[in-house]
């Protein structure tokens, strides 16, 4: 095994209610992201998969309180870094793609302008040069007529095209080591979903990126990811290579999840 790019160790935490009550939601979560491949974090509603991902970037909800744990990235504990150092990592070293791309883009600026602004923020240079890079990035994610598309606003993009633009921003313009993708294809049609997943796999293979895919869909995982982390109710129940998870699942929950995903009759009801 190579040295992981990122390691989450013993991450635990709870939500604080307005009355001060603590509800534990993450229990000793630990996993590693190997460089140059896609690792999936799979789980159902309430498994803690998104919260874990948001914690990596330090953008967890304000009422979440960590009680223990470390997140090691390139040898440094992200959770112990001062705010300005986290900001230097966020976007530039670790970027994120969200589920609803049209909601994540700013509706009052053109898509090209938003990509160009991000480029200048991270890499400097003139506005004109940044716009050229933005158009280049849109071309790289197979958006047709990138010059014209760059002048359009997010509402003029379809969901699939907007997600391509977000991936262009997060994976190309930001030029990070690690991209976290939070349900990037949920809500997209299957043909569009397949094309987006192909694009992500291509970018990872060609540019030496590392990706962490948060998803509830084991089908998406089987074709594109190298490793899988299965979470249930705030705990990691199993982590292994994709092949091992799909052909030799060891934890009962993984087995049930697989059966339910395939709608096999052996699918036992999973307790809530």
């Amino acid at each position, binding site marked *: 095994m190579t040295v992981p790019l990122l390691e989450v160790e013993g991450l635990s935490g709870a939500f604080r209610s307005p009355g001060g009550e603590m509800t534990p939601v993450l229990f000793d979560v630990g996993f590693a992201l190997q460089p140059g491949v896609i690792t999936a974090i799979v789980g159902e509603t309430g498994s803690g998969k998104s919260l874990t991902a948001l914690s990596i970037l330090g953008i967890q909800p304000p009422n979440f309180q960590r009680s223990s744990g470390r997140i090691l990235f390139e040898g440094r504990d992200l959770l112990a870094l001062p705010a300005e150092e986290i900001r230097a990592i966020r976007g530039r070293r670790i970027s994120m793609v969200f589920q609803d791309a049209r909601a994540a883009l700013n509706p009052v600026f053109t898509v090209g302008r938003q990509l160009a602004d991000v480029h200048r923020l991270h890499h400097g240079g003139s506005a004109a040069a940044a716009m050229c890079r933005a158009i280049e990035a849109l071309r790289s994610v197979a958006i047709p007529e990138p010059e014209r598309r760059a002048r359009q606003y997010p509402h003029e993009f379809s969901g699939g095209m907007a997600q391509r633009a977000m991936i262009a921003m997060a994976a190309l313009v930001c030029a990070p080591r690690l991209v976290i993708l939070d349900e990037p294809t949920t809500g997209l*049609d299957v*043909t*569009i*979903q397949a094309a987006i997943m192909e694009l992500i796999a291509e970018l990872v293979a060609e540019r030496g990126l590392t990706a962490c895919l948060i998803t509830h869909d084991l089908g998406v995982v089987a074709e594109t990811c190298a490793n899988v982390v299965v979470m249930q109710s705030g705990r990691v129940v199993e982590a292994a290579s994709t*092949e091992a998870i799909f052909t030799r699942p060891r934890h009962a929950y993984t087995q049930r*999840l697989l059966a*339910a995903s395939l709608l096999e009759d052996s699918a036992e009801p999973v307790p809530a």
Partner: protein
Amino acid sequence: MTSAAPYIVLRAEKLTKAYPVGRGRRLLALDGVDLEVAAGETLALVGESGSGKSTLARCALRLVEPSGGEVWINGRPVRPLGAMALAALYREVQMVFQDPNASLNPRMTVRQVVHEPLRLHLSMPAEKRERRAQTLMDMVGLTAAHLDRYPHELSGGQRQRVGIARALAAEPNLLILDEPTASLDVSVRGQILELLRRLQVELGLAYLFISHDLQVVRHMADRVAVMYLGGIVESGPTREIFERPLHPYTRALLSAAPVARFGAKRQRLRLAGEIPSPIDPPDACRLVGRCPLQQESCASRRPPLLNVGAGRTLACPVALA
């Protein structure tokens, strides 16, 4: 097919819905669709966003007023019906919606939700309603204790069970299920599908099952109709469609669907670009410009949906040749 003609619960002919979008242009959401659902069977409508599958369901019930064509429910034409007769018709056909959070009134208890159709459709007295409500809870795998709950006190799966109980209350013979499991986790999805299958057998229900989830469709449907850009491009028995899809759109759709199996490599048929605008579509095949099999003739006229035997229909002469 048996020799006796099956009893047709729902029949639509040339059902059309066009929305005017200004400057004399029309958005053709539903473009002359024919379809039949027989008693006790499940017909699945599959297709992506904008294919018209939800518009078709809503037009069939006149929740959206169609702009052309006719619908018969249990043999009765639906379009001439007045408001009162239409309301009475909803005893025979009910709908289950995708998101039970949105389709259940948050201020009504489960009891009120389930009592309402009993009161409105069957004019049942209170005592009888309560007994029937308890039976319905039992049928959908809930208990009488759930009757006192509000929707927010239930899980997503339980809420969808309440949606199903409400739909069954007036004893319809057809349910229109519009993405009934799309907002549920996979483990809950299986339970709801199992429930629907059991109820279908027990009550002899016919289902018009709308879904974009091909795995679910394969599991549930007797027949499948594939929709694209407002029209049906292919239909037939589920097994036939999944094992030998003919229309290039069906093939692209099936080959794009992710399967939770390691090493399940498939030959992917790719379509170019994205679904085109449904505003004033040209008289050409709906897939023109995206199709890998495209020939010159495809752009000159719309290929009709033809009977190709074995209960299948297909709107692609190129795939047949």
